[in-house]
């Protein structure tokens, strides 16, 4: 951050602190028109720009939602759309509601040749120019997701894949800060696989340690950046059982081993976990974190939104009122988890191997 002015650093830190407000989290609404369109069509609702606008308006303006939200991540299309409540552009509407607006710039995944399908995320070209535009349109932060998969047998993620992805994340962060956006860096290690929790911990530390070193080497102002990591879990098909507490402790262990104190918080992604599992794990982390100084919260998309789409099945049209009610109920769960106050129902948050796997392992 040595090249940034004191004023710029102060502003980045101010916005990062707002996003990391204790007890609040992020609603991730940044799916592109194609992706969100597929979700609509999947429940029998036609994809149109107006429907996408109305749906996002509900996510922002549902009564009571803003109490649990510090920020919202938008697709570039949404930055230019307006609220029908008062005609305000969505970024300004969100600011009025006390929710910091951010953007996911267009990115495209690319399989690195010779790496068994492992990818890098492409999007650095012209990123500065695009981010300047988004900033002018009211975005105050950006997010970039670099997905990785663990496949122990194939030696993935390999050192090359880790370095390539983490260096790109660091450069993205540097560019964002240069144009006045707080960068959220998202190293997303998938649930896919049968690796155990210890392996997940080791890989998460390796990936994250590479990321922070790369950020420091690039000159990123750490205090003006945020993390959006996956929750550390055993692979989906892991044959060993783990308790909720073990999983929460593994997450705290990873953070303690490499997450800089200077970064204000981590907003965990849901990545295929149910809302209940994700909330149970986040809540347990908060219960156990002691005086670890980071804010630990959520940045959820599918976990919050997929049940909302289900409400539209058979109706042929968005059910905004019903969706709004369910969304608020879900946000109350998310907010409770961010405060360490969500009580897991039944086995929520534990990893229980599928019966066939457990039998095979026995």
């Amino acid at each position, binding site marked *: 951050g*040595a090249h940034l002015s004191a004023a710029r650093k102060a502003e980045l830190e101010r916005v990062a602190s707002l996003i990391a407000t204790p007890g609040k989290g992020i609603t991730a609404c940044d799916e592109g028109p194609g992706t969100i369109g597929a979700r609509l069509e999947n429940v029998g609702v036609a994809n149109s720009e107006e429907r996408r606008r109305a749906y996002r308006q509900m996510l922002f303006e549902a009564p009571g939602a803003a109490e649990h939200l510090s920020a919202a991540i938008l697709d570039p299309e949404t930055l230019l759309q307006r609220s029908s409540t008062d005609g305000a552009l969505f970024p300004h509407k969100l600011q009025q509601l006390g929710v910091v607006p951010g953007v996911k710039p267009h990115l495209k995944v690319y399989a690195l040749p010779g790496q068994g399908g492992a990818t890098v995320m492409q999007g650095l070209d012209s990123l500065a120019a695009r981010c300047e535009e988004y900033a002018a349109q009211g975005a105050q932060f950006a997010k970039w997701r670099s997905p990785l998969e663990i496949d122990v047998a194939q030696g993935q993620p390999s050192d090359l894949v880790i370095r390539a992805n983490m260096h790109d994340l660091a450069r993205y962060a540097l560019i964002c800060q240069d144009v006045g956006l707080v960068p959220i860096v998202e190293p997303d290690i998938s649930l896919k696989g049968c690796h155990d929790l210890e392996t997940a911990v080791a890989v998460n*530390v*390796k990936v994250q*340690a*590479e990321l*922070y*070193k790369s950020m*420091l*080497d690039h000159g990123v102002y*750490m*205090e003006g950046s945020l993390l959006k990591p996956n929750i550390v879990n055993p692979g989906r098909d892991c044959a060993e059982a783990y308790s909720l507490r073990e999983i929460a402790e593994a997450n705290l*262990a990873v*953070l*303690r*081993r*490499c*997450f*800089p*104190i*200077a970064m204000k918080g981590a907003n965990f992604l849901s990545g295929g976990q149910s809302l209940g599992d994700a909330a149970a794990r986040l809540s347990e982390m908060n219960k156990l974190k002691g*005086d*670890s*100084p980071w804010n630990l919260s959520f940045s959820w998309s599918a976990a919050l939104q997929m049940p909302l789409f289900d409400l539209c099945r058979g109706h042929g049209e968005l059910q905004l009122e019903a969706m709004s009610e369910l969304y608020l109920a879900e946000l109350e769960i998310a907010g409770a988890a961010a405060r360490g106050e969500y009580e897991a129902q039944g086995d929520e948050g534990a990893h229980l191997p599928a019966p066939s796997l457990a039998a095979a392992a026995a």
Partner: protein
Amino acid sequence: MAATDFRQELISTANAVASPGKGILAADESTGTIGKRFDGINVENIEENRRAYRELLVTTEGLEKYISGIILFEETLYQKTADGTPFVDILKKKGIAIGIKVDLGVRPLRATDGETYTQGWDNLADRCKKYYEQGARFAKWRAVLKIGEALPSELAIEENARGLAMYGMICQENGLVPIIEPEVLSDGSHGIEKCVQVTQKVIAATYKALHRYNLLLEGTLLKPNMVTPGQSGPKVTHEEIGMATLTVLRRTVPGAVPGITFLSGGQSEEDATRNLNAINAAPMARPWNVSFSYGRALQHSVLRAWLGKKENVAAAQEVLMKRAKANSEASQGKYVSDGKASGESLFVSNYSY
């Protein structure tokens, strides 16, 4: 992962040394270096005088109130009091952890501008085993980096980080908590911002190496320099030093490390205490215990009170307790100067020992 047998012991030793309100007495001056100290007080550098001086330190009544660990030179580890009690027995009884300097000094890196690597890996595992048997539970290895126009070089940073990681790995495999010491010298006329950049880079490279060599961070300690202007650079306040130092640590030191014990690096006794106080008083959260590992800054006045004379031992021990207490308070952000500590600069250019 470190050797499973020692895992719990490494963690508990590291935590014990990182006890709030306590710090480390660095008394590991090599024979040559202690000779320089003795020169300053006209004391002959013979084994008996070295033994007598270290006896003075080790037998100080109540030292364990402020000192959680003491770093010794190899010779001292095997020495006894005048009446035949091994030093290690006295320290064990006081509950002061015993540390041992294991590096064998610095050597030049070829074709660099006076940069160095630290040597000492040969037989290190066997030496650690021996020291552990004698009662040592932690070790120290000093890596040295310089600030200059194009210094430190990438080579020096990487090589010294690797040296520390290998030393740390070998220590943990043999039951000793490694103190990780990547010292950035204060020689030079640079401003504090340069020291921020360099210290940040060096500590980040160090932890990258520690991760690479699979060290158990919870069973290590960090002994860094404070972030200051160069010796002949523009002066700043203690508060600025406190903020700059804590900022760098928050960016680079993982929360899993139980304690950070600063080196004094030639600061006067008073400055070393006041700067430590400023770091602890700085208004930013920190998860590690932040304390001292002082050699010169604890012993300067002690040596001058002793002057090699038996009849001065009690007075010299009082001085040691006074400095230790002051630094204990500083490690809690509670130090108030009484104006009597030595303000004499203890800076020696291009320091090696």
